[in-house]
């Protein structure tokens, strides 16, 4: 079929009656420019400045010392560990989120709604309270440990205050943010597509690969971004579940702002993390059409 003919550009009449189109952009402009770009500019400028360690006044200047400091192996090691942890938790999150989202999407409508509510409701109570519940759950002599021993497993399930407990905490906290976008994209699949695929002789696995996976890609990518990025900057969960033994990039960054007051160094860290993340996102977005084309 021929593509629709390229007609002359459509009219540029105001979108809503008399409102000029640009007025629609005004709220976004105000909130991004005034409350995001300008403060960020401040951070960018700070990252080249120095701080008075007594009264925490920041002196503007053009030193690159803060970026130099960052290249110490101490910090690079911490960053690498954080990237690894956030990558592995994001991937586990994607796998679990996908399975569950797919499970929901294949239920009858009523059950779908119930399950969605079941995903969201636990998150309407305080994040801190929920995270501390994991301390209780995972601790030595806690419910999981006792359950495992009742089953006759040898030794303790003693993973509280290890990187594993941090991973579990992050996985738990971010899972709904993974499930929802994947569900939304899977839910759009016309049920007839499954029948059609089966009709065309696709085995369940091929059906899954050819029909389900391509549809899930946009949701998966959205989920990975929404989960992976904050996971990299997460510092409350490592603090509560890490027992202060595992330093993460998020903690390092938060510490500069909340504990030591080294704003220039913290700003340099933030700028670096931002640039790295932007780069990754850019690559991900470029890769997206290629994935979808498969």
């Amino acid at each position, binding site marked *: 079929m021929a593509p629709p003919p390229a*007609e*002359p550009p459509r009219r540029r009449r105001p979108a809503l009656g008399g409102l000029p189109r640009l007025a629609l952009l005004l709220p976004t402009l105000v909130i991004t420019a005034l409350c995001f770009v300008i403060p960020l500019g401040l951070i960018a400028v700070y990252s080249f400045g120095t701080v008075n360690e007594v009264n925490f006044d920041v002196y503007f200047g053009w030193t690159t010392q803060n970026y130099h400091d960052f290249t110490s192996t101490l910090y690079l090691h911490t960053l690498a560990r954080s990237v690894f942890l956030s990558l592995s938790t994001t991937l586990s999150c994607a796998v679990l989120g996908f399975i569950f989202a797919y499970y929901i999407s294949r239920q009858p409508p009523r059950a779908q709604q119930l399950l969605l509510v079941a995903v969201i409701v636990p998150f309407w109570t305080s994040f801190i309270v929920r995270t501390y519940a994991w301390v209780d759950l995972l601790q030595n002599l806690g419910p999981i440990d006792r359950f495992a021993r009742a089953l006759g497993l040898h030794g303790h399930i003693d993973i509280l205050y290890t990187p594993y407990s941090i991973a579990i905490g992050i996985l738990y906290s971010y899972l709904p943010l993974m499930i929802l976008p994947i569900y939304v994209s899977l839910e759009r699949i016309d049920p007839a597509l499954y029948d059609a695929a089966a009709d065309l002789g696709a085995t369940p696995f091929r059906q899954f690969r050819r029909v389900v996976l391509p549809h899930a890609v946009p949701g998966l990518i959205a989920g990975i971004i929404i989960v992976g990025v904050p996971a990299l900057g997460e510092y409350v969960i490592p603090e509560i579940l890490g027992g202060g033994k595992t330093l993460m990039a998020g903690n390092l960054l938060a510490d500069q702002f909340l504990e030591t007051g080294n704003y220039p160094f913290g700003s340099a860290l933030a700028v670096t993390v931002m640039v790295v993340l932007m780069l990754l996102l850019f690559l991900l977005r470029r890769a997206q059409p290629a994935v979808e084309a498969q």
Partner: protein
Amino acid sequence: MTATTTTTTPAVDLAGVEKQFGDLVAVRHLDLQIQPGEFFSIIGPSGCGKTTTLRMVAGFEDPTAGRVSVSGKDMTGVRPYRRPVNTVFQSYALFPHLDVYENVAFGLREARVGKAEVRVRVAEAISLVQLEGRESSRPRKLSGGQQQRVALARALVNRPDVLLLDEPLGALDLKLRTEMQTQLKDLQRSVGVTFCYVTHDQGEAFSMSDRVAVMNLGLLEQVGTPEDVYHRPASLFVADFVGKANRFRGRVTDGSAGVYTVDIDGIGSRRVPGPDGIPSGAEVVVVVRPENLRATPAESRNGLTATVIDAAFLGAVRTIRLQAAPLGELTSAAGGAGAAPAPGSTVSLTWDENHAWLIQAGD
């Protein structure tokens, strides 16, 4: 350009309409009238201005110059929601959040039609397009053809003076398309609403339309019945756009009142019908449709012979590609029943005097 003179008020009257987008002229000085109850099509290639013309009738575009009237009332500058016309969009533009019933009822609710009447008229419209039982489905759950019919019912239920259709069959597959063409024509006959149909597919337009307008580069090239446009094209563009045409260059040596004597290059003098007013000595092109160009395996009596390149069997017809030494490649078509001429064989080409048409060259 032929402006049909009638006593009734035209359903659509475009007078001196022009449309520019910045530097781009989309429609140039267009005069066009569509009669009530007519199935009228506008055809032309991409970017010819046909959709822009339709959108000016609907009110989505304001003409840069000229006047748009619907049923005798001046509609220039009137907003779309105040015009007695409705549109079937190329993408259907069905409201995804409303079911079939509410989609169809949309215009009636906007017109504040009473509840009981809404029910009756929506039911009527839905049965007209044979979608009974799908009232509470969402558009996404319907097939392309069904969606197309919802779009049709949604527009027709408002009993518009004119129904505008913007390539409504473009997204359907070939079989469904032919089916829908018949249905559309039947539907138009039964409701009696004026249809203004835009398409780039001349076959589709010919099969349904009472009259056809051909546009190119923003200009109206010709208006007429499908037969007029096909057999008596007003320009070389029209001749080519609506079908395959064999062209022969020549000069008018004599003639008036619709039949001229033309000295055709490489063939000689022939009598050819054409429009009035071509002066003697004018450079012309003689157009002969393939089905009117007879190829007979015999020696030439009048000088035009050609070599068969190949033949293609298409069922009802067989087309033969020919090479005529000074004239280039030609095409002949004949009923599929006879035997195919062998490639490489020599044939003589003839046509009936009435089955050619003269177009003045140089335009």
